[in-house]
């Protein structure tokens, strides 16, 4: 092993037609069911970014950076790596929301009722969105910090850039 930290996170691996993300948002529904017992995309830890007109859809969840930006900006040290995932200690968290814009891929959001940040916790090891994805485009992938997975990162970066360009 190189000694550099490696982390495993949820990524989108699209195959050739028709094995692409179809924008059904089943991952969002399942995530909120597993974590909250209700269906509510606003409480989902994974969000499908969509632009319907050109058929763009792309699920975004925390890729579990080994040196996470969100942890760096947290004023109370509530974000740390725990059990293989970047985790937020809600009891320590003061709900300032600084981690939300700090995340380079927009994978953290504030819970609509508790107003504390929520993000992917990998369901403790067996992410349910991956289990339920009807086209099997979600995968768990290991990547080294500083050496991003070449198949995944460019797509994600392009996707985010495209969205920002369209929305801003």
């Amino acid at each position, binding site marked *: 092993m190189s000694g550099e930290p490696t982390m495993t996170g949820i990524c989108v691996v699209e195959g050739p*037609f028709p094995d692409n993300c179809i924008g059904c948002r089943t991952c969002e*529904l399942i995530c909120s*069911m597993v974590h909250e017992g*209700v269906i*509510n995309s606003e409480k989902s830890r994974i969000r499908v970014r969509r632009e319907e007109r050109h*058929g763009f859809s792309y699920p975004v969840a925390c890729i579990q950076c080994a040196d996470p930006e969100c942890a760096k900006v947290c004023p109370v040290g509530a974000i740390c790596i725990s059990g293989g995932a970047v985790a937020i200690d809600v009891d320590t968290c003061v709900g300032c929301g600084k981690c939300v814009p700090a995340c380079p891929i927009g994978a953290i959001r504030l819970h609509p009722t508790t107003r504390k940040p929520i993000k992917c916790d990998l369901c403790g090891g067996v992410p349910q969105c991956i289990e339920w994805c*009807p086209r099997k485009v979600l995968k768990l992938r290991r990547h080294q910090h500083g050496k991003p997975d070449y198949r995944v990162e460019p797509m994600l970066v392009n996707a985010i850039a495209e969205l920002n360009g369209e929305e801003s």
Partner: protein
Amino acid sequence: MGYAGGYCGRIAVVDLSDRSVETIEVTSDLVRRFLGGRGLGAYLLSRDLQAGTDPLSPENEIIFETGPLTGLWLSAGRLHISARSPLTGTIGDGNSGGAWAPELKAAGFDALIVRGRADSPVFLWVRDTEIQIHSADGSWGKTVGETTELLRQQFNDPDLKVVAIGPAGERRVRFACVMNDYARAVGQGGLGAVMGSKNLKAIAVRGHGDFRIARPQQTMDFLRETIAHVQKKPGFDYFKRMGTTSLIAPSNEVGYACYNNMQYTRCPDADALSSEHLQENGYFRKSMACYGCFLGCSHLMVSKRGTFTEGIEFGTLNEVTACGIADADVAIEYNLLCNEYSLDTFDTGHVIAFAMECFEKGLLTKADTGGIDLRFGNREGFLAMVDQIATRSGLGDLLAEGLVHAAETIGRGSDEFANHIKGMALDTDIRGMPGWGLGYIVSSIGADHLRGATSFTIAASRTMSQEQSRRLIGKEIDPSSYEDAPWAVWYEEKGDAVQDSLGLCKFISSPHGGPDLIYYKEYSELLYLVSGIEIPEEEFDLIGERIINVERAFNAREGFGRKDDTVPPRMREPARGGYNKGTFYSQEMLDVMLDGYYRLHKWDVKTGIPTPERLRELDLPVLADQIARISNPSR
């Protein structure tokens, strides 16, 4: 009242005339009798509208409904919309996918009723049980896509879900549709014109609330099994890949294509529209899905000119060939035009096909068409007519009134080839397929393929075994038998009404998706797990029957009956081409089917109207009294 899940328990009522907003309760009586969705809409319309209400008057109501399962990850993103139809004069309702309906539920409403008429164009903004009426001066005249983008910018929210009409709805084209999520259409019956008549441009919805589930873990377990079961269905993978375009090949083999305004039941160049051709030549860009759907039958298509459109479906392609055109690039342009104008792709194509036949027969000339050589196969002429209809310019103004009015005005025997039932255009040929045809003939909204037309009796897809037929319908069905057709339709239409009311998609559930997918037993179990409401399996059949009766009684109040359950003249001529070559409907065949169908429903066989006794049995006392007065005016 409170529900443990499934229902929000609230219906919003907006009156655009006095700009009032109120909420009414979804009572347990409504739930038990009608479930939600289509059933709820039919009941509310029959309760609120006086007989003879002009569909384009402020007195008409347009109701946007969800079902208790709408929003579940079981292909249940369905939106249902109901109003009295300006195209047919019957009850008018339709169903669409996308993500608008789950968003309405997240905003806290099971349904939204819009009454009255605004003084000037408005749109509704719904956010978490709050409803505001805003001026639509900025979006009036704009297309569906432009309107959607404008509203998303105005509220700075890319997740805003929008239903809207385009210029065709504003101009009250009688077959204007309501569009949601850019490319999803509640297509038939002219509901877009009803929105236009109310000066209602759009409804933008954003909800942050929970869709509560009474028993979350059991629901997840149940759905895991159910989805695995449906995925094993024969043809699931093919349908997932190709969507409804996969039906082009069998339709031309069997002969339910509408080539050249239904003069022929096969299109000679249909291969150019087949799903294989579309895929091999790069028209399919990617698969797309409605909210929470594991099937994902829709596609993003792109033409050689670079035009994007979502989901050209089989019926749309069939209407393009009705105009003598088998060209995927034209079909993509056509689909996008219709979506942006909010025109129904079925009736628009068919009324143009009708005009083309008039032109070829000399009943219309270049003086009428504004110089367009409107012969079958003229691609530019075809697309130009779509513009004319949407803007009501030239001949388009006449065609925008629908087939019945156009044929009456043009006269000179043109009604012989105006192919409609109750004013709604046919989207497939129905000859030689009694179980399919009878569904169209007796459908409560006019010619429609999703309300009783039995796909399992069509030659290419006889998916039901005799064992299943005995068990599910109580009788072995011979697909070519006119005596058996009523049984098949009776079984199908109840199931379809229940699905439309629960909020489920027809492709993943029985009967329309095929036998032994998910059906009453699973509906009963799922409704219990989601909402905590116990409705036994057998009662769903009764609910389906009740909904069909409400719709039939609504239509009877407007003067519809047996005389209207018929086929257009062309369906009485022998079919030319395909497996069904030589088949036709005679009056005798129609009578056999109608007699049998009315008897199964225990309706008056002579008039085709529900008897007051039958309506009372079905717990519809008010309608029973109203029908009693129609049947016996002296009382």
